[in-house]
């Protein structure tokens, strides 16, 4: 069976790459349709919001540290801190909370 693992990897990598590649290469021209443009403009915000919540609450060892990390990230992001700072300080706050709990 282990010899098949490489074929599995090839199949999954191929499928995944094609999903990523096809729209990017087919949609080369700027779309003029106002609805489609607006839709694509809103896509990342909805996608990222859906992916973040409520999954973030189960990301760490317990829901309390995750909640604190979530709140810290919101406050820092609202203040316009960089991706790196928001990310790092959320991690640090989770670490500190879990030391106490």
């Amino acid at each position, binding site marked *: 069976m282990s010899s098949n693992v490489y074929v599995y990897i090839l199949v999954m990598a191929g*499928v*995944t790459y094609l999903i*990523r590649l096809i729209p990017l290469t087919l949609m080369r021209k700027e779309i003029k349709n106002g609805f489609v*443009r607006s839709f694509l403009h809103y896509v990342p*915000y909805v996608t990222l*919001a*859906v992916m973040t919540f409520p999954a*973030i609450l189960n990301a760490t060892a317990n829901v309390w540290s995750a909640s604190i990390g979530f709140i810290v990230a919101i406050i820092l992001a609202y203040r316009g801190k960089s991706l790196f700072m*928001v990310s790092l300080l959320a991690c640090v706050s989770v670490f500190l909370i*879990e030391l106490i709990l």
Partner: protein
Amino acid sequence: MNTNISNWKKGVRDGIPICLGYFAVSFTFGIMAKNAGLTPFQAVLMSATNITSAGQFAALGLIGASSTYIEMAFTQLVINLRYCLMSCSLSQKINASTDFSHRFLVAFGITDEIFGVSVCKEGKLHPFYNYGLMTSSIPGWTLGTFCGVLSGSLLPERIVSALSIALYAMFIAVIIPPAKGNKILSGIILLSMLVSFLFAKISVLSEISSGFKIILLTLLIAGIAARLFPIQEVANEQ
């Protein structure tokens, strides 16, 4: 070109939080890959060629069950179909005049995280910015896998737990600043989180896989938002 290098550097810098978060997630993946019987080389190869967390975790289950290749292909298609939406969105960020070949490289790096960071950047997308993101984040993904396979106990649990919030915190850092002072965008984000929460809590809906849930809610909420609040200023975005 100087702009290439400066964009690449910006990307490398913005990719560091992705790298941290990837390390934590792929570390867990590495441990599971080892348990599923993969060699370190196979696990790292899978990570380096796929760069997709949900797809790779699902693949371990399929390999363990000796599924057919068709099943593997179909599962990956369903789980990773959200990349198709992201690719559509990203296609409009790249200047039509940008050399066609760049699209093949940029496509390889369309992950939730790289997409999120690059698409929300103001103005048109510079491919070298994406290459920068890939330069710093993909090694985090592969190295994390490698460390996970090699020794699951290499990192204390506390560290892995803390790092596990990195990607989510980064998503928040991506979506909140543009929403500040923008009632429509703020409303869309809050609504998305609320509906996502309901999907997780309502028993019938919680059985929907996370990949499909993302596609469904994105089509629905972004579609309604586009109908109710069409964007005008996007047309002038250069």
